[in-house]
């Protein structure tokens, strides 16, 4: 039996892109199509499944690397025109958008890219976003996921509102629409009233691939029902194994085939030809944001000022917040559990971060990735870059061939669409 093949999504823009250029003071946020195209083509040369665009509709907290980039739909549509195989996953918020707008833009991106669109369904975590969209306060997590549930249902119904056969070519070669095969959806729910049908024909993939990244209680419940790709922060192998096992069981309980779920934890390698060079690079990159800023960010999540504690002594568990409420922010819960289980100090926590991190050689990275796949900890990874475009270039040149040599990564794209690349059947 052949070894299970891993899937790789490439973060490009948005949250988590640590796009620091060594030797420069500011994070690099490419807004030039030429630079973006070069990176997209590099990822495509590396046969990656998709480019993954995070998003946040605000400048709040955007001092962090990579946030101040371009809007995902426009960017992905432009990149669709200059790539051929790689998928394009757009983040769009269910809390601050209208389902008709999101459904039609995704359908359009799917047509433009000939079946390579994906939607990362986000409910928006950052409260400050609310201030850009009116006077209502940012809704709580339960309310956000209730809206997300209805929003996603409406989007699916809109894509389904055109039968496959609704579009046909007549005897004169003209593309025509059989109106009898297009139906209103007549949705009336708590949050939305949408008559439909969609104003675009059925997307080539049937429905764009659905991705999701919430790891809170409501987030996992939502993912079990809808997500085909899950992006998650899993810093250790046992945690990742437990998460993937749980998500597969939840999907099965929701009546879905667990083999149609791709769990892709974040992986942030700092790579260099030798261990020593990699360590130097990691130190240089860490120095950019400053210890205090990174400490403050985690302090905010924990509700505990880590700067007042000794940097090298274990954080006392008694100071940690209660995380028994299932609505606890998943990142808060993750850090509390890591501190409890591993006795981490403030600096230890900083060095670890929330995502699987790695400092070393391409060989070491390939070995680690294979180990996770073989252990059932992941179906692949969401690659987050320490620096751009150098991190991506080195990964494609040096890590990809090693993964292929180990028999855990494709040597050619299996088909044309993102669904085919991910090995996911159409949902309907």
């Amino acid at each position, binding site marked *: 039996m052949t070894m299970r093949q891993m899937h790789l999504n490439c973060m490009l823009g948005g949250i988590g892109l640590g796009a620091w250029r060594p030797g420069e003071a500011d994070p690099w946020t490419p807004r030039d199509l030429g630079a973006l195209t070069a990176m997209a083509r590099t990822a495509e040369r590396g046969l990656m499944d998709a480019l993954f665009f995070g998003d946040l509709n605000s*400048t709040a907290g955007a001092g962090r690397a990579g946030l*101040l980039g*371009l809007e995902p739909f426009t960017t992905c*549509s432009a990149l669709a025109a200059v790539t051929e195989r790689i998928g394009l996953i757009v983040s769009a918020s269910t809390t601050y958008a209208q389902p008709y707008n999101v459904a039609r833009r995704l359908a359009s991106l799917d047509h*433009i890219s000939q079946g390579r669109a994906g939607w990362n369904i986000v409910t928006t975590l950052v409260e400050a976003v609310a201030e850009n969209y009116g006077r209502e306060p940012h809704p709580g997590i339960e309310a956000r996921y209730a809206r997300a549930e209805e929003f996603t249902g409406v989007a699916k119904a809109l894509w389904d509102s055109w039968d496959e056969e609704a579009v046909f070519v007549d005897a004169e070669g003209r593309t025509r629409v059989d109106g009898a095969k297009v139906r209103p959806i007549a949705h009336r729910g708590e949050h939305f009233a949408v008559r439909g049908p969609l104003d675009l024909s059925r997307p080539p993939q049937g429905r764009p691939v659905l991705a999701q990244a919430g790891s809170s209680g409501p987030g996992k419940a939502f993912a079990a029902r809808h997500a085909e790709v899950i992006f998650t922060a899993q810093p250790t192998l046992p945690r990742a194994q437990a998460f993937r096992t749980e998500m597969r069981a939840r999907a099965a309980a929701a009546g879905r085939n667990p083999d149609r779920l791709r769990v892709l934890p974040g992986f942030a390698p700092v790579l260099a030809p030798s261990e020593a060079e990699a360590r130097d690079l990691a130190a240089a990159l860490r120095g950019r944001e400053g210890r205090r800023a990174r400490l403050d960010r985690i302090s905010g999540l924990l509700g505990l000022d880590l700067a007042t504690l000794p940097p090298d002594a274990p954080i006392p568990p008694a100071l940690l917040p209660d995380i028994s409420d299932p609505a606890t922010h998943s990142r808060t819960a993750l850090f509390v559990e890591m501190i409890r289980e591993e006795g981490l100090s403030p600096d230890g926590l900083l060095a670890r971060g929330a995502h699987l991190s790695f400092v070393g050689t391409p060989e070491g990275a390939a070995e680690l990735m294979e180990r996770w796949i073989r252990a059932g900890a992941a179906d692949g990874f969401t690659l987050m870059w320490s620096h751009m475009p150098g991190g991506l270039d080195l990964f494609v040149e040096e890590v990809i061939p090693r993964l292929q040599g180990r028999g855990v990564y494709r040597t050619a794209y299996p088909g044309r669409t993102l669904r085919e690349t991910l090995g996911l059947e159409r949902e309907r």
Partner: protein
Amino acid sequence: MTRSLHFHSCIDWLDAAWRVPAETPARLFDLQQVADRARLAERGLMDAMFIADFYTYRPRVNLEPLTLLSALAACTTRIGLVASVSTTYNEPYDLARMFASLDHLSGGRAGWNMVTTAVGTVSANYSREEHLEHDSRYARAQEFVEVVTALWDSWEDAPGGGEARPIGHEGDWFSVRGPLNVPRPPQGHPVRCQAGASDAGRDFAARWAEVIFTAQPLLPVAQEFYADLKARLPAHGRAEADMVILPGLLPLLAETAAEAKDMAAARQAAQPAEARRMEELLGFALSALPMDEPIPLEVLPARSRVNGMRGRSELYLSLIRKHRLTPRQVLNQDAHLGFAGDPLQTADLITKWFLNRGCDGFTLMWPTLRANELFVEKVIPLLQERGLYRTAYEGTTLRDHYGFRPPPGRLDVRGAA
């Protein structure tokens, strides 16, 4: 400054109801075909590709404007990219960042056609019970544009982005803190276009619009419209050259005048749907009246009662009153200027309208792909020979194509106080 012609090429028009033998079928959902047409227009040195938006199902296959134009940005190098996006069914923050983003991706070629959506069925797709009344749509649009502009101005003009400041907008319709999360667009502001011809629409246009689309089938009426809009500009501190007026033109263009006439006849034969549309627009039953007698004035509503497309509705009512048109004349009249002719006749028509200040150029709505090609191959060179049209793009941005001044930088605006 000497005037010169400007052209927009419509993406969304080819899918015509009548038949032309051997014509390449339109595939508006096919990026490659649309990209080929954009490159064709770019060879013709046109100012921009234009795409309208509808937000509601029509029995045709197309793409969403902003995604399509973003893809076209990657397939072209000079031509502008103008999309209609509704102020009624979008949030200003989203719209500001999408156009800022398109402007960055295209190197300064984005244009926003500010539309207040005029179709009642759309509200049913956006969780709204009622479509906004005409005047409220403009009140909302006014504030919408102010917010979008402030967001574009929320970043310093500086390489790499510079500094950003909140806008702190609190108004009747919107509350938006800002700043935008995309740095200032290369053009400062993507070019603002508009297509409303009603009185509320004209005031709005005089304040905000840089490019005007309008339906003007008759030169004298077009001249009045042109003079009226340009006369409204000084009150807003604007000069004549700050606005370009591009009425729609449907060039039924063929190699010979005879072929063009055949095309016009074929088109005429496929018009019953057009009659129904016209009756809806006018608000009374046209076909119930004697076809060749002037329409009795008493059947005309004093003012247009329709909620959508009011400008066009009022235009027709005034034409009927003024020229005492018969139902047949009204039905034979395209809303836009339609003209059947060979390349020379077409160039003559354009020249006449331009020199007589009926327009600054046209928004070209293609009946066929062949007409589009012929226009670039045969009509453009004639206009160039007459010294009325550019022989090369003079700049890189859409603003450059129109000869517009760049908008003041943010620091100029706020630092002056």
